[in-house]
């Protein structure tokens, strides 16, 4: 018994008899994880269904953390609004003893446009703000849900929520401290505060309307005053 072993160009056939027991065992052991991975991957990426409800947890435990994945690239609904991030600072101007609160300054638009300055090697800085906006969105959504929960459960739920988002807010605090230090050089910055807003993109049906419709900015989330963190790279 011989086999062409996948060859298509006339090389000498390879006899089946040369398959060793070691290779057969190796094949068996290798096929098990590959089959498990393939099935788990299909379930993990499947749309919501009764099967996913039953097997989703097992699929996640197979794939995460090293094979965790999310392929909803700009889907099902791409963003229909642009995010805005306003930064306020409490600072002591040079030679002054009175704390001054600055006007909110929009910092996101300039950062979003940074990749244009180097198209071959665009900066990843806009990605940071995207991550902050996602965290803010998620925090707001969950917080709104907590408002509808029974009153006596709300404090504990809010505490859990704050603990869950503590790393994100730590990052924001450090990021905005660095940004404020760049915006107000020489001033002694005491605290910073962020306000997340959203501005809808002009709807497709109104794209050629003149003058261009002005979409209002809608506030999403305002952080509390966070102490300024010194020593963050700028």
């Amino acid at each position, binding site marked *: 018994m011989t086999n062409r072993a*996948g060859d*298509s160009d006339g090389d000498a056939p390879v006899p089946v008899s040369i398959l060793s027991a070691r290779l057969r065992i190796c094949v068996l052991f290798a096929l098990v994880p590959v089959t498990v991975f393939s099935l788990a991957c299909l379930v993990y990426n499947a749309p919501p269904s009764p099967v996913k409800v039953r097997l989703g947890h097992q699929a996640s435990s197979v794939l995460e953390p090293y094979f965790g994945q999310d392929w909803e690239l700009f*889907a099902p609904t791409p963003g229909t609004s642009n995010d805005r991030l306003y930064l306020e600072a409490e600072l002591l101007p040079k030679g002054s003893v009175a704390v001054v609160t600055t006007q909110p300054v929009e910092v996101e638009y300039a950062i979003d446009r940074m990749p244009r300055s180097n198209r071959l090697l665009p900066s990843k800085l806009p990605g940071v703000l995207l991550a902050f906006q996602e965290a803010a969105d998620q925090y707001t959504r969950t917080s709104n849900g907590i408002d509808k929960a029974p009153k006596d459960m709300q404090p504990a739920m809010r505490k859990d929520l704050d603990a869950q988002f503590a790393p994100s807010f730590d990052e924001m605090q450090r990021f905005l401290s660095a940004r404020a230090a760049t915006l107000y050089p020489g001033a002694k910055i005491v605290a910073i505060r962020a306000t997340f807003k959203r501005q809808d993109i002009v709807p497709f049906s109104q794209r050629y309307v003149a003058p261009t419709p002005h979409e209002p900015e809608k506030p999403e989330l305002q952080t509390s005053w966070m102490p300024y963190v010194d020593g963050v790279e700028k």
Partner: protein
Amino acid sequence: MGVARAVAGRGMRRIDSAILRVACTEYRLIGISLLRIVLGLATVLYCLSDYRNREFFWGPNSYDSPSVASRSLPHAGFSLFLISDSQAWFEVLFHLTIVSSLAFMVYGGRALTLVQAVLMWSLHLRNQDILEGGDNLAQIVIIFMVFTVSNAYLAPGAKKRRARLRAARRPKAATFLHNLAAYLIVFQVAVLYLTSGYWKIAGKLWQDGVAMYYISRDTGFQMSYKYSHLMSNAYVGTAVCYVTIFIELAFPFAVLSSRAWVRKANALSLEGLHLGIMAFMGLVCFGLIMIGADCMAMRDDDYRALWKRTLPLRGRAVAGWRSLGRPAAPPVAAVPPTAGFATASPAMDSRMVGRVDHD
């Protein structure tokens, strides 16, 4: 009893010949080599795009402090960058990542792939804020690539390596693992496109053909006003939306297709799509990684056929180039296009049409 034994024997022989088919010959060698180059290049660009801001993104005094980054690590996740808070450790590791990515891109091989996997994962998990879909795919694919022969083409010594692979034409566990890993990469990419296409076709804005209009107006992905203007056109915007969904959903079927032109057309369309994403949306690393993944759609024979098709073009280009240096002589008489083609062809054939692997 005798019949049962005969049936069992026939079944075993079938299984054996199936094993032989995947244990004797390495498949997708060219696709994996291209993927290796692209992954290495994408990691180098990932580091260089924010080289001046490296401390801000990944350093010990980053806005994403080591303590916060450690808390954000997934269960069983790791990052070598978080082992020490020292500036020297960070600098050494960061530059080692660039050097190792370059070495991986040029040389490939299992050991370098493993080093690349560890360093790339470390860099990605040091700051997860700036990751995107392409990085997610790169993280998964690099694990599979550890088991593959990633330097059989487009690497120093590739010709000798192919000759060695060809000489050792007997069933081997390493060959079997290579092919399983190649299958997993193709399978993962197919799942990616199927999922992405499914979610798009389920989205109202994609169905309406206006998704590209909104994406082109997102300030985070708006690299040019001309592009936004183009996507405002009802016909162009709708066509781009529908073509995107179509070629994404077609990928798994194209990979399984026995017709070479289907695989080539699908892979080249997807590569065009990702070139567009790189140019107009500024997602250079994402686009590069996805182009690398698209390269896995084609079999080695498809690449050889494409390479052969470009021979006349290259012959003409060489002839044209040579004729530029001799304006007085008629180009055809000086370097006949057929002569250029004829001289280039055998050399290229022996290099690219080496009978080593067959899909």
